C-alpha cells in the first residue's frame, strides 16, 4: 500500500507540471505529421543524390554525345572535341563530388542551374514552359478516370454478377492490358487516318497558334480541344485499373460486419453505399491515387511525342538523349517532389480517414 501511495504521488505532480521544452520538442518530433514530413524531406534528398550519380553513370556525357555527332560528320576526335567544348561550357572531367556539392549548394539557394546543351537557358524556365501543359492534360485525365472508375467500380460491385458488371469487367480488363501508346496509335491511324474523323495535323500541339493567348473563350476552348486526344488516351489506358480496383475493394467492404449491421438496422441502400461502403472502399485507392498524382508531372514521353503535346515528357526524351544533366536533374527533381508530397498528403489523409493508421503509428513510438 505504502509503495502504491508513494508511487502515485509523483504521478499527480507530473500531471500538473507543464511539459518542459525538450518534452514539447519530443512530442512534436514524435507526432505523426512531423514524422511523415521529415521522411518526405529525407526521401527527396536521397532521390536527388541518387539520381545525380545515377544519370552520370549512363554511357556518354553531353560532350561525348556531341563529339559522336560531330565525328559522324567526318571530324577527327580532336576537331570534334574542340567544337563540342566551344558549344558547351561543361567540363565532364571535373571531380564528381565537386559537381555534387556545387549542385546541392545551388539547389539550397533555389537555383536549378542552366541547361548544359542550351547555355543561357535556365532549367526553371524550361520547367515553367512545359509543366503546365502536362499538369493540365495528365491531371484532367486522372480526375476523369478516377471519378469514373470509382463510380463504375462501386456500381459493378453492388450489382455483382449482373450483365452490366460482366460487360464492364471484360472491357476494363481488356483496355487495362493495352499500353497507352498502342491506344494512341490506333486512335490516330484508325480514327484519324482511316475513318477521317479528325485530321492528325489539326490536333497536334497544345493550342492553336493562330489564337492570341489570353483568358478568352476561344483560347481556353482551343486548349481543351488540343488536350482532348491525349486526355482520351490517358483515360482509356488507366480507367480499367481504377474500375477493377474499386470493384474488388467494394466487394471486400460489402462483406464486412458493419455493413451487415447497417443493413439489419434498416438503413437505406443509398446511405449504405455512400456513407458505409464508398468511404471504406476508397481507402485502398487513396495511396494509389496519391502515387498517380505524383506522376502527373512526369507526363508521358510517347504520348506527348505522338501528339506533339508540349509537356515535360516530350522534352524529357530529348534531354535524356543529349545527356543534358542539369535539365534532367531539374525534371527529376520536380517529379520526385511531386511524388513525395502527394504521398505525404496521402499518408496524412489516410490518418484522417482511418484513425487506426494514425493511432498505430503513434503507438509504435
Amino acid at each position, binding site marked *: 500500500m505504502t509503495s502504491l501511495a508513494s508511487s502515485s504521488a509523483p504521478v499527480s505532480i507530473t500531471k500538473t507540471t507543464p511539459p518542459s521544452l525538450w518534452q514539447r520538442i519530443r512530442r512534436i518530433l514524435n507526432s505523426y505529421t512531423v514524422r511523415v514530413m521529415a521522411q518526405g524531406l529525407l526521401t527527396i534528398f536521397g532521390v536527388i543524390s541518387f539520381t545525380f550519380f545515377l544519370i552520370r553513370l549512363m554511357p556518354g556525357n553531353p560532350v561525348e554525345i556531341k563529339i559522336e555527332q560531330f565525328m559522324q560528320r567526318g571530324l577527327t576526335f580532336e576537331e570534334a572535341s574542340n567544337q563540342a567544348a566551344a558549344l558547351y561550357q561543361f567540363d565532364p572531367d571535373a571531380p564528381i563530388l565537386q559537381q555534387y556539392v556545387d549542385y546541392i549548394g545551388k539547389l539550397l539557394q533555389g537555383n536549378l542551374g542552366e541547361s548544359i546543351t542550351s547555355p543561357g537557358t535556365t532549367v526553371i524556365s524550361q520547367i515553367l514552359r512545359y509543366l503546365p501543359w502536362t499538369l493540365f492534360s495528365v491531371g484532367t485525365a486522372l480526375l476523369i478516370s478516377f471519378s469514373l472508375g470509382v463510380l463504375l467500380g462501386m456500381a459493378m460491385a453492388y450489382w455483382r454478377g449482373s450483365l452490366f458488371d460482366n460487360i464492364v469487367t471484360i472491357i476494363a480488363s481488356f483496355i487495362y492490358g493495352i499500353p497507352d501508346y498502342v491506344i494512341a496509335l490506333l486512335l490516330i491511324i484508325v480514327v484519324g487516318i482511316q475513318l477521317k474523323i479528325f485530321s492528325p495535323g489539326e490536333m497536334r500541339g497544345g493550342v492553336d497558334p493562330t489564337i492570341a493567348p489570353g483568358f478568352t473563350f476561344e483560347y481556353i476552348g482551343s486548349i481543351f480541344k488540343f488536350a482532348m486526344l491525349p486526355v482520351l488516351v490517358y483515360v482509356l489506358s488507366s480507367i480499367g485499373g481504377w474500375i477493377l480496383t474499386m470493384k474488388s475493394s467494394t466487394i471486400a467492404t460489402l462483406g464486412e460486419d458493419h455493413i451487415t449491421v447497417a443493413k439489419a438496422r434498416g438503413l437505406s441502400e443509398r446511405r449504405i453505399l455512400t456513407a458505409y461502403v464508398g468511404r471504406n472502399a476508397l481507402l485502398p485507392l487513396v495511396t494509389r491515387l496519391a502515387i498517380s498524382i505524383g506522376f502527373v508531372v512526369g507526363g508521358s514521353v510517347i504520348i506527348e511525342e505522338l501528339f506533339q503535346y*508540349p509537356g515535360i515528357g516530350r522534352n524529357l526524351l530529348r534531354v535524356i538523349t543529349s545527356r543534358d544533366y542539369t535539365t534532367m536533374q531539374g525534371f527529376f527533381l520536380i517529379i520526385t517532389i511531386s511524388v513525395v508530397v502527394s504521398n505525404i498528403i496521402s499518408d496524412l489523409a489516410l490518418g484522417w480517414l482511418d484513425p487506426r493508421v494514425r493511432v498505430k503509428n503513434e503507438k509504435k513510438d
Partner: protein
Amino acid sequence: MKRLFMLFCVVILALGVVVMPTFAQDEAPSGVFYGTWPYVLPPDHNFNGFASNGPNTNLGAIFRAYVELPAAIYNWGTQTFEGLLAESWGFSDDGTYYEITLKSDAMWSNGDPVTSQDVIDTYALGRIMGWSQFNYISDVVAVDDHTVQFVFSGEPSFVAERLLLKEYIVSHATYGELAAQALELIASGATKDAEEWTALNAAISEFRPDEIIASGPYIYTMDDVGDAFMTLHWQANSIYSDDVNFGSLQLWAGETEATTPLVLSGELGHSTNVYPAATIESIQAEGIRLIDIARGYGPALLFNFADENAPWNITEVRQAMAHAINRDQNAFLTNGIGARATVYMAGLLDDNVPQMVNQDVIDQLNLYPNDLAVADELMATAGYTRNADGKWADADGNLISVEYTFPAEFADFAGAAQDAIAQLNDFGFDITPRALPWAEAAAAIRNGDFSLSVWSWASGSPFAATQFFGPIRRFNTALPEDQPGISFPMQFEWNGEEIDLDNMIIHASDGLDVEVQRERAGEVALIINTLMPFIPLNVERSIEPLNENLVAGFPTEDTWLANPTGSDHPIIWYLLNGVISPGPGAA
C-alpha cells in the same frame, strides 16, 4: 488629243516597266510548302547560329539555307558548285588563297546589302568556336565590299573549298559586336587556351539575338514557332525572293513516329525521316511518290583486332566472312528498299567509285560475291576445319565464339547486325548477339570493348579522304590515345614497301590535281578491298515521301538527284530556284 493619249500610254508603260518588278517583289507567292524538321521549342529554341539549339538544330541542313544562304551549293551529278550568295569563286593562281565574290544585289531582310564584312564576322566567330575551316586557312581578308580572300595556311585543297563555300553567312547587324571582340582577340595573338578566349566563347554560346536577319527568301520570329509546327514566311529582300513559289514553309515538328500519320493523311509534302519498310508500303498504297536519294553511309561489320580470342588478324578469315554474307539479303533486312548491297567493297560509296578511282583499279577490285565454296577455301587456308557440328575450329579445336554488339535503338544497324550474325552462324561461326543502348555501343567500340560490332562506313562527302574516314580512322587513329577503338595497325608492309595507311587516307584528297587524287584514292581502295579491315555490308538510301498533291514539279531525272540527303539535298536548289511549286492541294 491623240498625241496626248499616246503620251499617256507611253508614261503608263514606262511606269509599268519601272514599278512592276518592285511591285512583284513585294507580293508573297501563294501556297504553302509542308515539310518537317525536329526543331526544339522555346526557351531552348534560339536564333544564334553559333550556339546549340540555334538555326543549325532548328532548321537543319535543308531549311537553314532558305533563311541564311551559304556561298554556294554542290551539284554531285555535275561535280560543280552553283552560286547562292556567291557570284564567283576560285583558287588564286599561286594557290595561296581562295577568293569569293558575293553577288552585288544580295541583300538582308533588314535592307542592308550582304557584304564582305558579313563574311569576315561569320568567320571571326567561327574561329572562336573551333570551326574546321581553320585547319586549312589562317586568315580571312576583305578585298572590297563584296570580295573576300581566305588565306591558306598550307596546301590549297578542294576539301577546304567545299568547307568555305557551304558555310552559312550570318549578318554583321546581328553579330557585329561579338565579331569585333573576336577580331580584336585574334589580332592580340591569343590562343584558345587563353582565359579571354574561353570567356568570349561563353559569351558567343549564350548570345540570344532577338531576331534572325535573313539573306534567304524566308524568315521567322519566335511567334512562328508553335508546338506542332513552325512557319517560315516569305520576305521580299532576298535575291531569291522572286524565284521561289511558296509563300510560306510550314515545318511539322517531330521525328519519324510523329510524322508518319501526317504522311499517311496527306498533310506532309516532303519528309527526310527514315520510315520502316512496312510504313513505306503503306505510303506507296496511299499513292504518295517516293524519291530515292543517297544517304551517304551504311552499316559495316567492325572487327576488334586487339581481341586475342578471335582470329580477326587473319586476312583470309575476314575475306571468308565477306564472301559468306549475302549482302543483298543483308541490305533488305537493314532498311527494306532503302538499302543496297555494297558492290565495290573498297571503302568508297559505290555511286562515287567511278569518279574517285581509275578504271584499272576498279578492274582489280574483288567484289566478294556471296560464294560459300570460296569462303570455305579461305577458312581452310587460315587453318580452320569444320568440326562434327559443322562449326569452324582451329587446330586446337577452338571455335570462333565471340559476341557481336550492336545499337538496340538503331533499327537499321540492328537489322544488319542480326542478319550478319545469322548468316555467319549458318556458315560455321559461333556468334552471340548483344544489343546495347547506342551510346554504350559506340563507347564500347571506342574503348575496344567488343569483338564484332556494327557502325557506319563512308559519309555524305564528295571526297575520298572523308569517305575513307569511317570506320578505319574514326574508330582507330582519329581517337585519343586512351581509346584503342578497332586497333587496326595502319603501318605495315604492302607490295614490298612500308606504308602508313593513315597518312595515305589523310592526304588522299589533298591538292588540286584530280588525277593525283584518283591515284591516291585508288591505292587506298585496293588496300581496303584486299585486307577487308571492315566489311561494308550495304549502302543505305533515303526513301523520302513526296506528296505531289502538295509539291509539284520535283524532277524525276536530274543531276541534282545525285546529291545526298544529309548535305546538299536537291530540294534546297529546287525550292530556291522555283523548280518546285505548290501542288493542287497546297493551301
